[in-house]
């Protein structure tokens, strides 16, 4: 699935979910996303970085520079308190949507 095919806002939700476990840098988020979706979601840097920027501007994620496991410097994104609230909201609404959509699909 190409990024354009992703529902708008979904990417933000996924990133929030990933950094909710532990702070993560951009590259790591991308890898994690690929692994978790079994390679189904191939997010390009062109959508990743704007999304990170958006999360940070909204105050949902906070970035800080740290060393990576390979001793490089990278910007780690950690979820904030308001980020967690947003995540909860988004998860709830996502679940509601999927339930609704699958009901329609099965019922039709």
């Amino acid at each position, binding site marked *: 699935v190409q990024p354009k095919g992703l529902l708008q806002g979904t990417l933000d939700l996924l990133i929030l979910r990933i950094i909710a476990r532990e702070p993560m840098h951009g*590259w790591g988020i991308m890898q994690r996303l690929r692994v978790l979706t079994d390679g189904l979601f191939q997010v390009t*840097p062109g959508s990743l970085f704007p*999304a990170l*920027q958006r999360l940070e*501007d909204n*105050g949902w994620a906070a970035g800080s520079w740290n060393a990576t496991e*390979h001793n*490089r*410097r990278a*910007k780690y994104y950690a979820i904030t308190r308001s980020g967690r609230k947003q995540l909860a909201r988004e998860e709830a609404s996502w679940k509601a949507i999927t339930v609704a959509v699958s009901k329609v699909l099965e019922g039709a």
Partner: protein
Amino acid sequence: MWWPRCRALVRRLLHPRAAERALDAEVHAYLEQDIEARRRAGMSAEEARRTALLDLGGLDQLKACVKDSQAGARLYGFPNLGHDVRWAIRGIRGRGWSGVLSVTLMAIAIAASTLAFSATDALLLSRVPYPEPDRLVTVRSMVQQSAFENLRRQTDVFSGVSAHQPALTFLTTATEPEPVDTAYVTPGLFETLGILPRWGRPFVDADRLSVSPTVAIVDAGLARERFGSPAAAVGKVLATSDRPLTVIGVMPPGFRYPAGAVRIWRALDFEQLHPTFPNMTMIGRLEPSISLENASARLTARLPELVRKDSGKVDIIPRTFGQSSEERATMLRVLLAAALCLVLAACANVASLELAGGIRRAGVLSIRMALGASRGSLIWVAMMEGACLAALAIALAAGLASVGASMLVSFLPDTIVFAGVNPIDVDWRALTFLIGIGAGVWLFASLPAVVYASRSNVLGVLKSQGPRASVSRAGAWVRRVVTLTEVALAVMLLVGGLLYLRTYAALLNVETGMDTDNVVSLRMTMPLETFSDSGRADLVNRIEARLTAFPAVVSASRVLGTAPPGNAYTMRPVVELEDGRTAREEASITVYSVTPSFFTTMGLAPIRGRVFDSADPGSLVVITDTLWRFLWADADPIGRSFRLGQGMPWTTVVGVVPHVRTNRDDRGGPNATAFSYFQAPRSGTSQPARPRGEEGEPTPLVNAPTGTLFSSSSILLRLSDLSFAGELLGVARSVDSRARYTVEPLDATYALRHAETRMATSIVTAFAGIAFLIAIAGVFGVMTVVVNSRTREIGIRMALGAGAQEVRRMVFGSSLRLILAGVAIGLATAVGASRYIESQLFGVTPTDPLTLGVVSAVVTMAAMLATWHPATRAARVDPAETLRVE
């Protein structure tokens, strides 16, 4: 959510480069991680870098993507504020002369309204510059020195009581002594007011108790003029014609107590004073815990010990500061309103220019939209351009206003400049007003262009072939409304200006009742410290003698105190007549004390009886026609007596002269004037029972007015030619240079009475002139646009057989409709507003048909002239040419 976004936006606006660097670093770190991962997966170093870069999809595009998602991106769609400002400046540069015109116009209008505001602020809104002004009271009492000391001891009532008195100090200069308004004050005045000298120290009791105090506190401006800086002035010596004064303190700039003109404060020297302190004002500050009523009650209870006199009385009333007369308040409001009208007209004009510019650039807008600029970004740029224009205008206006304020102060009559407790200047309040008005101008002026930008649509413009065809109907409609407003405002201001002009002309043309051509008054001010009573009388006599011998002097006479039309002793008395009747005067009665030659000098011939003779006793009086009619109606007044109230001396009428115009006549009811016989004292004779402060014999008609610490006298001179007036000053100074002399043609004195009206007239007329030009330019502009937008239609009409004449008529017709509508609205508003300026007018009614007619005709004609060019262009449209283009 909006708060973090705002914070991010602000952070990025403040540090645009830091945000950019951070993104750079992050992307590079990402790239390195990616390359390393690929190498670990077995790629060669080169291969890893190449594929990683490829996947990244180009650094610049990536950065652009990120910026699009940044906070505020949708709002302005550009990387940062600097970029937008550059865009806006480019847009403004592209405006060329129209941009310069817009900025200048806005700046003039903003500066004009700021000046009107600061004058209103200083004179009308009585902002009191002293702490806790509601605790300040005026203490009214006929006080003697001991009583004043007693009052000061009532520390449970007052935290301070002080007295002050007007005086003059003659400062020594290279040429002649310079009289400077001075206040004699008791030590403690500054503490009572709550404002101390900023440099040096205030007065202490020791300053006063010395027999002749030689210390002074001066105004910051005076200190700067004389000693370079206020700080340097402390300890220096001011040379005066009397005795040198040591400067012990300098007041902060803007300190204006008790009057704006006062620049020197000297310790009150009781030895110098008359036992009953004429013109003394007492000011007290109440104890914080006491109410006005309680204070009053306590003082009344202690009256016997306070004044030690049965008839003594002490009143305290709240102190008021800088109250303007209703007339002046109205004038200032009119000026402020006129300035705001001008601002509105300027706004309308700039809005119209901006809109025209916007329409011209419609093509650019659409192309930018087609290339992906959001509607928001176009609006943002339009607003930024407006903001840049407004900022330029505000900066220019601030400069104009501060220069204008000092010009205004030198242009205004002293009576206005020194009237308020606050100086007329561009202070922070005026600056706030300026910026507020500037912001308003920005909103108004950029609104149409913003609305236009927000409505522009790609298809509409790209479908049509060029910018000319793209002139939208909406744009033309807005411009018509704007032009209508401009014409209406111009008509309003012109009506106001013309009414003021006619008022001023009417005031100047009022008959004075005297032959004032070639008459000058020489006013002498003699400081009491320098001249004794007989010394003053002697000086006036000597100068009169010298001037009478001067070849150009035809006739000379003397007036005690102020000469006509000045405010001499004026009262609204109960007049007692010899037959026991009393008459309550509706108008006021002004009394001038004159020598017999006054009537010759002023060309006043009696219409009944005779004028004074040098052998006459002092109990005679010459009255004006007005007073005669009032007192005795038609009965012959000669030989009858009257007195101005009980206790006044009886006087007998010897003659009647025609009505003489004085300051009291200009507005309000008629004023009756009486001339009492002033017998000039002979030099060297001492005259007992004379009030201190006035030179010469008290006038028999009234008890002498209270004197001041300086004394004045006037000599009226009829010259063979006014050009000799300049030489009189030299003659007077050669007799004695220790007094102040002013020579002024009497016509100028009369004209000066109307200085305020003249000022209002010239300001409103200037505003009206600018508004008029704006309106005419507006009509020209809108008609040009109308003709441009209808070129095709005109071409078709002409192809169908319409002649040049018809086309011209059509253009003139549409212009005329617009103008007449504007004139009608302007006239209606002017008539509606006229009752507010009615009290300002003289000799003309606010709905004067001639004024309204002339203004309508002039505006209509000028606007039709402005239509001439567009109409002619329309008539020259070549149908073949127009249709071929399509």
